[in-house]
């Protein structure tokens, strides 16, 4: 809040934009080192030596981050000697990072427990997820049961008291604040703080040119309004859907970016199917509720089509109303998850080669870091692009559902105009 206010009062917008650019660049470089530091704790220890090698090219670029990561790496190196036999499994490491979890791993042996909320046989159990694990000296988690519940690969099961290690429990209703849910709440709090200050700025700055943070946000608000909502929905209906589209756009974008910020536990919010499912479901509900006679008519009785074609077309059209939001959901999840996997794969690459020989670790590490920096840039673009694509498609679906038949040509004309 304080920093937002500070940015808002900064008079020179240009300098602020410059500052953001520099921060982003430093951030990119920092992320490469940070990504490594985070994975260290999970990746098996023998590679810890080579971790240092991966750090070194980064050290030159980032002052603050590299220091901490180097420290971490040294700490790990000591443990590394003892577990030399343990093998590094890249697939496990990647899956561990992109999957949802009941605790946030900040790196090393630093874990933030999250509340576990379980609805089991009609009563609510709320306790800290730290009851499920203890952190061992390598920074790994040793899981154990609590109150008859077991955290089985981040799925909470009820196994009963004093159950054997391989006992199969039954699923419980898990309403825990998981890593993704927590990240989502973080984004929401950030959004509310950020946009409230921007909205206040608008109220205070009536009749004046935008300044500070307002100036940075405004192009995106106008982008959503004028380049997404207006061309897809037309002038009259756009006002109704713009608040939703703006919320979805900024929510997805900020979630995507939060997932790219290192040292926060590697959130994969928009890569969590449950969350994109909700977004897609809301789009589906709004589309269906606002669908007019013409929209449903086109689906269940396509005009100007011979009878036997209708038999084929109607089921396809009917399926399409479900497929469209499903595609929205899968596209977003897949893109964001894929980005995380690629970045993690480069980390894993250096670690795998480091396992063979330190020299290979050094060599591959340099290339890995460069590729990772490139991928981070690309992922920043993807973060924006996926938010844009989701919002645009949602707007197009709403436009489809509310389109007035007589205005179709006029509408096309509008789109051309807008471009």
């Amino acid at each position, binding site marked *: 809040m304080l920093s937002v206010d500070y940015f808002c009062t900064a008079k020179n917008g240009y300098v602020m934009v410059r500052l953001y650019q520099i921060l982003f660049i430093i951030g990119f470089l920092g992320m490469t080192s940070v990504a490594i530091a985070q994975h260290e704790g999970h990746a098996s220890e023998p590679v810890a030596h080579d971790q240092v090698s991966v750090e070194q090219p980064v050290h030159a670029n980032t002052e603050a981050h590299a220091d901490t990561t180097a420290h971490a790496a040294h700490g790990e190196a000591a443990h590394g000697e003892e577990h030399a036999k343990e093998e590094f499994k890249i697939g496990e490491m990647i899956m561990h990072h992109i999957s949802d979890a009941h605790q946030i791993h900040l790196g090393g042996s630093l874990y933030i427990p999250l509340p576990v909320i379980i609805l089991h046989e009609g009563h609510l159990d709320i306790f800290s997820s730290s009851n499920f694990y203890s952190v061992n000296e390598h920074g790994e988690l040793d899981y154990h049961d609590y109150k008859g519940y077991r955290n089985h690969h981040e799925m909470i099961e009820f196994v009963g008291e004093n159950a054997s290690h391989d006992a199969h429990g039954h699923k419980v209703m898990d309403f825990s604040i998981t890593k993704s*849910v927590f990240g989502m709440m973080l984004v929401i709090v950030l*959004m509310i703080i950020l946009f409230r200050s921007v*909205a206040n700025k*608008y109220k205070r700055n009536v009749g004046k040119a935008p300044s500070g943070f307002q100036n940075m946000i405004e192009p995106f608000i106008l982008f959503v309004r004028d380049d997404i909502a207006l061309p897809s929905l037309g002038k009259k209906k756009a006002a109704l859907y713009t608040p939703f589209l703006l919320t979805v756009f900024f929510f997805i974008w900020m979630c995507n970016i939060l997932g790219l910020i290192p040292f926060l536990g590697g959130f994969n919010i928009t890569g969590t199917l*449950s969350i994109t*499912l909700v977004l897609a479901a809301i789009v589906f509900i709004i589309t269906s509720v606002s669908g007019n006679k013409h929209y449903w008519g086109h689906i269940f009785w396509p005009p100007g089509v011979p009878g036997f074609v209708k038999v084929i077309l109607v089921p396809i059209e009917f399926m399409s109303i479900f497929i469209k939001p499903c595609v929205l959901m899968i596209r977003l999840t897949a893109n964001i998850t894929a980005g995380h996997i690629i970045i993690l794969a480069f980390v894993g690459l250096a670690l795998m080669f480091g396992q063979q020989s330190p020299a290979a670790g050094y060599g591959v590490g340099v290339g890995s870091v460069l590729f990772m920096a490139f991928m981070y840039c690309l992922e920043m673009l993807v973060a924006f692009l996926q938010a844009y694509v989701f919002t645009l498609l949602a707007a197009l679906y709403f436009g489809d559902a509310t389109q007035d038949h007589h205005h179709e040509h006029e509408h096309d004309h509008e789109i051309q105009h807008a471009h």
Partner: protein
Amino acid sequence: MEGLLSVSVGTVFWASVAFLCVLVIMKRMAWGPIMSSLKDREEGIANALRQADLAKEEMSRLQASNEDLLREARNERDRILNEAKSMSDKMRNDAVGRSQEEANRIIAKAQAEIENQKQAAITDLKNQVADLSVQLAEVLLKDSLTEEQKQKALNHSLIKEFGSN
């Protein structure tokens, strides 16, 4: 892989609650004021532009009317000047005519006076001559009447003289 592709009821629940909350809050708190002030500003700018256009139009219209006014004033001035000139000419001509007339009248009067005086003088002279003649005749008659001859001769000459008259 199961963790990645599975859908957790709890997460769906929290995501729904969280997203709907953020949607409502943002709509009330942020998008409402932001969109309305954006709209106000855009309308303000459009208005200002339109007004500037109108002002420009008004300006050119005023300029044209100013020119018209100027031209009219110039014409008026010319007209007034011409009028004044012609009037002054007329007045001068009138004055000259009148003075001429007056002079003529005075001259005519003087001439008439002179004529009168002349006639008076002539009459006076005639009377005097007559008187003198009578006196002379008296003298002469007195003289001549004393002599018969002379009287006769005189009578004769007088008759001759007056008879010829």
